């Protein structure tokens, strides 16, 4: 394996882990409500920008990070309670427009309340690069991979071993049956938005030391996270993880071997290819319309 290839692979996996976190958020909300939350990317932005600005008032970074995640969670819950819940009976197009509206509203608000400049967070544990078989990896990459793996394990345990996690999965599978056995589906929806917002914010914090954050980063990161969820199969947790890594690696390879100008196109081409040729993704369920 050439060291150049290994380098691209490593950077692809690193950024892919972020896409995976964002993609998980899409899948969790989709499972709970069959809504694609177009504002998912804004949680990523709030994670990064929130940490920058909370830290700027003088609190230590770990506190600022927790604050930013909390902020994203509060906004996620408000989005569900104030906007999406009110249009529950509405058509898909209506819901799409509401979440897009929420997305540019939050983006605009961030641009006003915070600012419109680029900001970086300091790396969590220094910038001393580590050499691996001729390739270089920065410690932040290890943080990203480590946290992503930890989040994946925690989510796995949550969804399979805890009552509330299983209730969430049950609701995704059959909302009516879940209601009948006494699951409060409203709380499940709120929890899903909270969880998705937290995942996005964590992703936004992790990536901010490597790629500067900005009030408009949400759109691209959101779309790439969506691409991860679609490639893996919408609604599938493992799918989102694998999808994220695939999108990240494909993008890094395209940037390395083809043209970095067009690296952002890769995620969309993947979305389009998967949607056209394999609409249920790698791990997704196929559903059909009954008449």
């Amino acid at each position: 394996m050439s060291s150049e290839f290994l380098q691209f692979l490593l950077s692809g996996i690193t950024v892919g882990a972020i896409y995976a976190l964002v993609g998980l958020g899409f899948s969790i909300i989709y499972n709970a409500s069959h809504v694609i939350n177009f504002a998912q990317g804004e949680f990523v932005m709030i994670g990064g920008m929130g940490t920058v600005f909370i830290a700027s008032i003088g609190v230590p970074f770990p506190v600022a990070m927790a604050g930013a995640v909390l902020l994203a969670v509060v906004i996620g819950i408000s989005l569900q309670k104030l906007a999406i819940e009110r249009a529950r009976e509405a058509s898909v197009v209506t819901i799409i427009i509401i979440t897009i509206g929420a997305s540019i509203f939050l983006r605009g608000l961030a641009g006003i309340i915070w600012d419109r400049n680029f900001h970086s967070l300091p790396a969590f544990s220094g910038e001393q690069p580590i050499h691996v078989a001729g390739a270089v990896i920065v410690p932040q990459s290890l943080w990203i991979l480590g946290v992503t793996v930890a989040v994946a394990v925690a989510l796995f345990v949550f969804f399979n071993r805890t009552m509330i996690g299983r209730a969430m999965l049950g609701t995704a599978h059959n909302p009516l049956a879940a209601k009948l056995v006494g699951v409060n589906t409203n709380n499940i929806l709120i929890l899903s938005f909270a969880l998705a917002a937290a995942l996005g914010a964590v992703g936004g914090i992790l990536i901010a030391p490597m790629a500067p954050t900005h009030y408009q980063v949400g759109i691209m990161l959101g779309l790439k996270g969506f691409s991860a969820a679609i490639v893996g199969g919408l609604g599938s947790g493992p799918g989102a993880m694998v999808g994220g890594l695939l999108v990240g690696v494909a993008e890094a390879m395209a940037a390395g071997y083809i043209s970095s100008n067009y690296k952002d196109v890769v995620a969309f081409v993947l979305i389009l290819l998967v949607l056209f040729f394999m609409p249920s993704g790698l791990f997704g369920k196929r559903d059909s319309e009954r008449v």
Partner: protein
Amino acid sequence: MKKPTVVSRYAGVFVLATVIAVLPLLLPNSFYFDVAINGGIAAIVCVGLNLLIGYAGQISLGHAGFFALGAYSSAILTDNYGWPPIASLSTGLFVVGLLAFVIARPILRLKGHYLAMATLGMGIIISIVLNQEVNLTGGPDGMPVSAFSVFGWEVNSELAWYWIVGGSLIVIVLLALNLIDSAVGRALRAVHGSEVAAQVAGIDSTRYKILIFVVSAVMAAYAGSLFAHYTGFLTPSEGGFFRSIEFVTMVVLGGMASVFGSVIGAAILTALPQFLTVFHDYEHVMFGLVMMLTMIFMPKGLLPSLRNWISKNSL
């Protein structure tokens, strides 16, 4: 039964034409003309987009891409290759129509959220290409576009542009209304209402979705071409995500499945940022709010809600 629809159809066009004819008398200066022209251009896009979203029920979050392709085709062919503007415009419409046709078949197999994301991706790819192909488009710095001319007559007064855009809008509204009130239009609305029932009635739903996707793309390209020559300068942001969202917001605010609603939505949302500083400075926030609030409190949009209100209160 037939008479009222036909009468109200042409009555609406008559009112629109009257407003367009009288408006120049009321506009105090060229700033107001500029707003009116830009509103008219946006209205042309929105009437087409509403045929797709409001009538046929197929969302597109990438129509600014077609708008920009129309604009850049005119700009590139006229300025880089020296074509007559009218030839550039026609070629641009043809190329965009062809591109939309090629994209339409795979993309319109998707429904709902998937279609939204796919069209969003399509729009962003177009805008990335416009940003990157610096040799052709000037990249992020933009490119100048020479004035529009037909057989040696150069369109350079604000008033001339006003009549071109206003006249185009009237024609396009008329064509759209004709289309909706025909078997083709009923087929489109039926596909929106229940695709399987439409197919049982013998409607090839794929064919109709492709047709209206292409029609709306060509309308957007036409508006883009007018815009290019009118403003004289283009940047890739004309094809960007936010521009697409602006068009969708206009359609939604005016009223889905309402042609005149689209004209009103385009007029309002073009004028507001020009006259209200809060709208101009906080553009994202305001557009986001308009989208959310309209969908939550007035999902039918302004014009249909107003119509409902009037008919309820006149009983």
